[in-house]
């Protein structure tokens, strides 16, 4: 009897705790989503409103009038997209090279690569700022692409290295015995087998650069301003329009949540830089 009672309590407790956890996690997100559909009067109501007349006014104001978010959206997409493509392609090549090479300084090389990923952003910004000023990369999408490569490239090399090291060695040897060149073995055998790794790498690179604020606010000008910078500037320009702000917040967050959760199975691998294998 007692065991039965204990185990049924043991079965209920996790769910009770889970509800608390979900409240803590989801209330801010849902409140952002709900507020983005409120009129300014409803957003600024001193008692929180759950019943209100939903309106698209905040979203419409984002794409009309003085601050057209579409140009920021374009800059965000270009800067993070191009940086992701370059980082992932070069990361595949270098990650494979690193995984298959066997020289004495390999450990040091690997450490140097990853330490560039760990450098504090505030410190990295300074020399890049001066360099970009010289090279006229300030206020260009290409400046942001280069800045994002500084963290995406080492990340991609390191992760792809981990995925390539997981492949069973026999298959590649067999291909080589059949007369495939080194590059053919990489291109036709190894690369297709790491497809999930490539997708995960690309998505995480995209999320990191899309969510960047520090580089963008320092290097971007009117011609290359990204969405997170636009969001932060809604606060300083004309007082705070929280309705608009929650709308742009939703626009920034939603795509990343969706693509991020799409590769959930491989996230652990990617986010621990390959140290932990997931589900």
């Amino acid at each position, binding site marked *: 009897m007692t065991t039965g009672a204990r185990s049924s309590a043991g079965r209920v407790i996790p769910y009770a705790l889970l509800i608390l956890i979900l409240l803590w996690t*989801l209330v801010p997100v849902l409140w952002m989503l709900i507020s983005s559909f409120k009129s300014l009067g409803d957003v600024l109501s001193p008692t929180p409103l759950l019943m209100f007349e939903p309106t698209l006014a905040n979203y419409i104001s984002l794409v009309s009038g003085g601050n057209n978010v579409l140009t920021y959206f374009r800059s965000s997409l270009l800067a993070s997209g191009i940086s992701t493509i370059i980082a992932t392609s070069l990361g595949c090549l270098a990650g494979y090279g690193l995984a298959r090479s066997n020289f004495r300084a390999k450990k040091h090389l690997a450490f140097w690569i990853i330490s560039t990923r760990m450098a504090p952003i505030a*410190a990295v910004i300074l020399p890049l700022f*001066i360099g970009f000023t010289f090279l006229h990369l300030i206020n260009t999408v290409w400046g942001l692409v280069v800045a994002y490569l*500084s963290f995406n490239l080492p990340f991609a090399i390191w992760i792809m290295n981990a995925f390539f090291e997981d492949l069973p060695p026999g298959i590649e040897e067999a291909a080589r015995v059949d007369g495939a060149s080194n590059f053919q073995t990489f291109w036709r055998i190894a690369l297709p087998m790491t497809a999930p790794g490539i997708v995960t790498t690309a998505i995480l690179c995209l999320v990191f650069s899309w*969510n960047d604020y*520090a580089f963008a606010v320092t290097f971007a000008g009117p011609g290359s301003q990204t969405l997170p910078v636009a969001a932060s500037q809604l606060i300083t320009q004309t007082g705070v329009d929280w309705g608009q702000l929650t709308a742009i917040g939703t626009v920034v967050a939603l795509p990343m949540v969706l693509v991020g*959760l799409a590769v*959930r199975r491989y996230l652990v691998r990617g986010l621990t830089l390959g140290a932990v294998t997931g589900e």
Partner: protein
Amino acid sequence: MQSDAAQSSGKQRSRRRGLSFEVKMMIPALVILAAISILPLIYIIWMSLHNVTLLGGSGIESNWTGLDNWGRMFTDSNVWSGWLAMIIYFVATVGLEMVLGLVIALVIHEVAWGKNLALSLVLIPMFIAPVIVGLLGRFLVNPTYGLYAWVLRESGLYDGNILGGSVSAFVAVVLMDVWEWTPLVVLITLAGLVSIQPQVLEAARVDGANYFERLRHIVLPSITGIVIVALLIRSMDALRYFDIIWQATNGGPANATKIIPLRLYESAFRFFHLGYAATIGLLMLAVSILVANLFTGILRQRGLLK
């Protein structure tokens, strides 16, 4: 002669072999990485030894000041208070994230029905741009129309301007960081929990060990390695990013939340003391390299890194 030629051609061949296929694959990435990491490193060291000012257009002016910036940094009470705020913020956020992350992972691991959905929902915050988290946090604790400020006021727990008081503002930015990054710890820890052999737990259960005994003697010891990975990943990111505080308080009120990267950014882009900011940056870099060494060292020791 002939043997000489043979030797030299052999040397050439071995040199060509030295630039193997693997190295060739790495070259494009490494060249770019060197250009955007080694050059800036040399440059930031140079900057820390100079007084650097921006001129209009794309020029800079600099004059050699030797170790003046370094001397100034070590006697600058603002820098010290920045490091102090950084250390408190670091310990509070990473500490809370580790504890909460472990607890939440254990809870989700126990849940049988809806486990996948629960995990997906719990992970949402870590995909949201830190800037948005800072702004959203500011909205939620706004004294006149913020949801959380209202809840705290109505429940009689706290009645006042949360971001206006030093302690409450600090607690608020810590909790914003915890909200965003605890999911990462959950995700990593859960991968460790999943890999524990169910037979071992079942055997302990049959032997009469209750949940907390199993937790202490089986579960926690077997996930130590993975928890260390989570700790070190979080530590590095905590040193790296400063967007949440930047947006939520910008270091205020009265510099209570002005962690060292904010101090650096202000020196560089508000007061335009670029050489001095570079000096602060170099010290931050040294700290992060130390942590990175710890990271790879411990992982290698535990065989998690090849």
